[in-house]
């Protein structure tokens, strides 16, 4: 067995609690990131579905003449932003409402007159499903005298984007705090390991060990601790996914390369934290 691996195993034996603590701290900080990933990934999917349906709805005044509506439809369809224009009559709207809200069927049936307006549903082409594209089409619709009101999902899209931003900020803060704790715990672990091996290190230097040779066991220890942390984070994230998926919302599990990347980040973090700490503490030996 190579020297550095033997020394790393010895270090794990010497202070298993400290290694677990370091791994837990890395694991928790990555778990926070994992939860964010899970949320962001599923929000993203929801956003894509919503974007596919992005449409502008113009509610029409009851007084509108059918010929005006047809003329408007033809002109709208000629616009480059527009994929399709669907006319929904008052009766269609009522039928749809009765279908979508079965609990209120009796209410709708008892009505003397149909309170729902007719509407034009404008679906946009893929490149124009943005706030600006939606706004442009809405502007045109508002110009028609027979259009009573224009609704579109822009506010909703913007809201989802800003929710995602708030979550990202929260994750940066909480994840960053856990990462700082992880770095401190790792530095402590390295300091304890260096001082436990103080004598050995001074003899290593005496007999001509290179700095790399002396540092290698510590770096390997950091790397393995980070891998453990990454594994813990992956496990916690998966557990959270299962719990949420089964009790709250249907979620989609993260792509597997995200998991690999997360564990790699943990390993890199453990390695770098050890590298910084070991340089600092070896100077004092």
């Amino acid at each position, binding site marked *: 067995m190579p*020297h550095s691996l033997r020394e790393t195993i010895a270090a794990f034996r010497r202070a298993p609690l400290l290694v677990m603590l370091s791994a837990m701290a890395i694991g928790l900080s990555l778990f926070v990131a994992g939860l964010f990933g899970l949320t962001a990934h599923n929000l993203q999917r929801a956003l894509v579905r919503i974007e596919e349906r992005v449409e502008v709805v113009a509610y029409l005044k009851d007084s509108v003449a059918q010929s005006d509506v047809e003329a408007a439809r033809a002109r709208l369809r000629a616009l480059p932003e527009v994929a399709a224009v669907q006319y929904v009559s008052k009766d269609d709207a009522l039928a749809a409402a009765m279908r979508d809200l079965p609990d209120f069927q009796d209410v709708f049936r008892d009505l003397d007159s149909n309170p729902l307006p007719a509407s034009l549903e404008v679906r946009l082409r893929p490149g124009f499903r943005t706030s600006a594209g939606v706004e442009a089409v809405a502007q045109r619709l508002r110009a028609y005298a027979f259009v009573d009101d224009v609704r579109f999902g822009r506010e909703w899209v913007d809201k989802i984007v800003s929710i995602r931003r708030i979550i990202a900020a929260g994750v940066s803060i909480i994840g960053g705090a856990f990462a700082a704790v992880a770095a401190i715990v790792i530095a402590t672990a390295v300091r304890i390991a260096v001082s436990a091996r103080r*004598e*050995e290190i*001074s*003899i*290593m*230097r*005496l*007999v*001509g*060990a*290179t*700095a790399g*040779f002396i540092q290698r066991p510590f770096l390997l220890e950091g790397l393995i601790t980070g891998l453990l942390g990454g594994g813990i984070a992956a496990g916690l994230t998966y557990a959270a996914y299962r719990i949420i998926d089964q009790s709250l919302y249907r979620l989609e599990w993260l792509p597997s390369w995200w998991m690999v990347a997360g564990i790699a980040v943990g390993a890199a973090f453990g390695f770098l934290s050890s590298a910084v700490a070991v340089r600092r503490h070896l100077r004092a030996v």
Partner: protein
Amino acid sequence: MIKLNNVSKVYPRSGPALKDVSLHLEKGEFAFLTGHSGAGKSTILRLIQMAERPTSGEVLVSGYSSTRIKAREIPLLRRKLGVIFQDFRLLRDRTVEENVAFALEVTGAKRSAISPRVGRLLAHVGLAPKARALPDELSGGERQRVAVARALVNNPLVLLADEPTGNLDEAATYGIFELFQEINAMGMSVLMATHDMSLLRAYPHYRVIEMAQGSVTNDSAAQLEEHRG
């Protein structure tokens, strides 16, 4: 081999440790470095190992200069030096043979090459039967022999010994010293710092470099030169 040219060393806290010291130790030479504690003996040995750099002047060891050596070259220099201390500096949780093998392992030597070499050296210092013992189970003299074996394992050019007999009784002292003589007879230079006057008196034909308060006050080799000159 080893050359100190007008070397001074000043420590920021404790002040000057060496003042304008010039020395030359040739290949295969044996020299005592003597003087009271605080005279600068250990500082000279540390400068030769490049554990410290001189404040002024230059230390030359086997082609490396203290003014030019790079940090990554220092381990390579150390492999050409065997160093022995008063307090042995053995790893207590490792056996005698592991302690000796350690010095080879850290240089990246092959496992297959380590074991026979360690065995030969332990036989040479007379500790072959105790290869599996831990340092705490050995006498002081035996521990110092382990340290000597470790110092020799990389085939150094020079043996540097800092008060190697300071913790030993008379019999062990002479035992270790005879070992040094054998090593020197094989062509290795030996620089031994000691304040054991009885040892110096017992071997009067060796070069003695006397130091006091950071300066060389007497060098028997220089006297010889003058005598010849």
